[in-house]
């Protein structure tokens, strides 16, 4: 049952617009959670790396794919492949149905009102670019302001920078505190009479912070300002209900939620999308074309120029059904348990400092080790089959905020285990030995 249809759930999720693990169903019953059978769903996890079992802790960069997703993509190419729409032949109808079925799967997954509010894009980056180029260019002018936060991924900074440079507008960023949490009062103060748009990440990829997006949206709407939520790091970890959130735009990438690369979605309220000019022009996005004039197609096709990534959409649909079959409440509870366990375990390592200690976190554990550059940590862990990410995580302003060049980041998915966290801890201890 979704939050929108369940008043009680809506209340519980009020502050975050979601059902975060610690609040609603956070202690979901994990007795039936069979981690070994979940891991068996992911062929890639069965292999060894450098003679060691793969410990994949780079899920915030991209997640691994369950068999059902791989099979869905293969099945599409083996049995259904054709170009969608318009053609009258059998395969085209099947391909169209597969593609539109995936759109309905997305609609259900984020509880959008209608499936034509779901635009297929390459990923969250393209979703944000679509909004900046289409909505932004028609609504942001000289002297106007766009407000983001100090914990955005570059993909939710640079498109707005380009827009603001072009329009003579100003990009402002609300600061974060030492724990990596948004300073909400300062955020509120930065909303001024010239603020034309608010764009905020739901979950920080570098810190794991869960933002109070419901409150942010309410505040912005009280000043008639539309809000885009970058959900790339949120959808794999917590239930998202775009109607309960009342966000104007929401975007995420398929590959971070166990789907293929090269496919993602942008949700937009249909009234906004209807009024927006096209983002790219070409086939499929038109209704009729003469050399003098083109009439654009209806939603969502107006924003889907060219042959889309049909197989990717089919794979994404399969991924979302897979996540739903396990249950996001149970996934969130499992991941929260892991994050708490990992946080305690690495905190005990001498000289290690966790970067990002927000009270609401999801999926990410960023840290630095005294006297050792994160890049060296990454190489040494890799020798033990442990994959983490090191660097600035495409969030250089976050690194500047904490005055560090980089962090080491372990990020979790539904298939990770406490034993893998133990391997991480042993690995970091061995890093200390190399540099002792």
């Amino acid at each position, binding site marked *: 049952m979704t939050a929108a249809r369940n008043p009680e759930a809506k209340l519980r999720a009020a502050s975050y617009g979601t059902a975060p693990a610690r609040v609603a169903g956070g202690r979901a019953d994990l007795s039936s959670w069979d981690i070994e059978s979940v891991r068996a769903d992911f062929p890639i996890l069965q292999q060894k790396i450098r003679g060691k079992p793969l410990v994949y802790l780079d899920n915030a960069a991209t997640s691994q794919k369950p068999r059902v997703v791989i099979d869905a993509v293969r099945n599409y190419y083996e049995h259904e492949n054709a170009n969608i729409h318009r053609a009258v032949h059998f395969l085209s109808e099947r391909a169209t149905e597969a593609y539109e079925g995936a759109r309905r799967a997305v609609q259900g997954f984020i509880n959008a009102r209608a499936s034509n509010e779901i635009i297929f894009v390459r990923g969250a980056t393209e979703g944000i670019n679509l909004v900046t180029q289409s909505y932004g260019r028609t609504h942001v002018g000289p002297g106007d302001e766009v407000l983001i936060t100090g914990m955005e991924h570059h993909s939710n900074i640079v498109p707005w920078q380009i827009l603001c440079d072009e329009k003579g507008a100003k990009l402002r960023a609300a600061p974060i505190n030492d724990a990596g949490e948004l300073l909400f009062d300062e955020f509120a103060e930065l909303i001024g009479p010239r603020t034309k748009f608010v764009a905020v990440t739901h979950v920080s990829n570098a810190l794991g912070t869960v933002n109070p997006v419901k409150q942010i949206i309410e505040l912005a709407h009280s000043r008639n300002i539309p809000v885009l939520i970058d959900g790339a790091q949120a959808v794999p970890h917590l239930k998202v209900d775009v109607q309960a959130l009342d966000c104007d735009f929401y975007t995420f990438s398929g590959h971070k939620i166990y789907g293929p690369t090269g496919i993602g979605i942008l949700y937009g309220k249909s009234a906004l999308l209807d009024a927006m000019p096209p983002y790219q022009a070409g086939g499929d996005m038109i209704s009729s074309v003469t050399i003098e004039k083109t009439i654009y197609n209806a939603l969502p096709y107006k924003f889907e120029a060219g042959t889309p990534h049909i197989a990717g959409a089919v794979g994404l649909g399969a991924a979302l059904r897979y996540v739903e079959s396990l249950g996001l409440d149970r996934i969130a509870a499992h991941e929260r348990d892991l994050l708490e366990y990992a946080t305690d375990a690495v905190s005990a390592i001498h000289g290690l400092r966790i970067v990002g200690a927000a009270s609401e976190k999801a999926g990410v554990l960023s840290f630095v080790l005294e*006297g*050792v*550059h*994160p*890049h*060296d940590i990454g*190489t*040494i862990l890799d*020798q*033990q089959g442990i994959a983490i990410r*090191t*660097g*600035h995580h495409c969030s*250089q302003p976050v*690194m500047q905020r904490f005055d560090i*060049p*980089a962090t080491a980041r372990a990020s979790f998915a539904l298939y990770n285990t406490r034993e893998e966290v133990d391997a991480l801890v042993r690995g970091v201890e*061995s890093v200390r030995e*190399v*540099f002792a």
Partner: protein
Amino acid sequence: MSDLRDLYQEVIVEHSKAPRNYGALATANHKAEGYNPLCGDRFTVYLDLEGDAIRDISFQGAGCAISKASASMMTQILKGKSREEAEELFDLFHKLVTGQAPAGDKASLGKLAVFSGVSEFPARVKCATLAWHTLHAALEGKAESTVSTE
């Protein structure tokens, strides 16, 4: 873990902890900044050139153990060398860390041969060569220039 000790040889770890010729050079007449966007490593190389001779050299910045040790040992070996010799060493060093150096060449690299383990770690080649790319830019550049490994 045996490969790891090839990469993190003691002399490399030691140089990364206590880099030589570290800090801005007051007499520098050439300098360049090098940046590796992949990991955020950033070094400035300072040169005091007299004609074609490297009279003095130093570096400053932040980076991983490999990049820092490489910068430190580069400054040691280059002091007093000519521009031509420096470029030649860069070429040899690049071959070494990418696994293309013939055995004879390794000998002429002297202490720098400890970086041969890098060739087993392709992701770290840019770390090992960052200071050298920056040196190259400083030698080529007029007074100040910037180089990126991407």
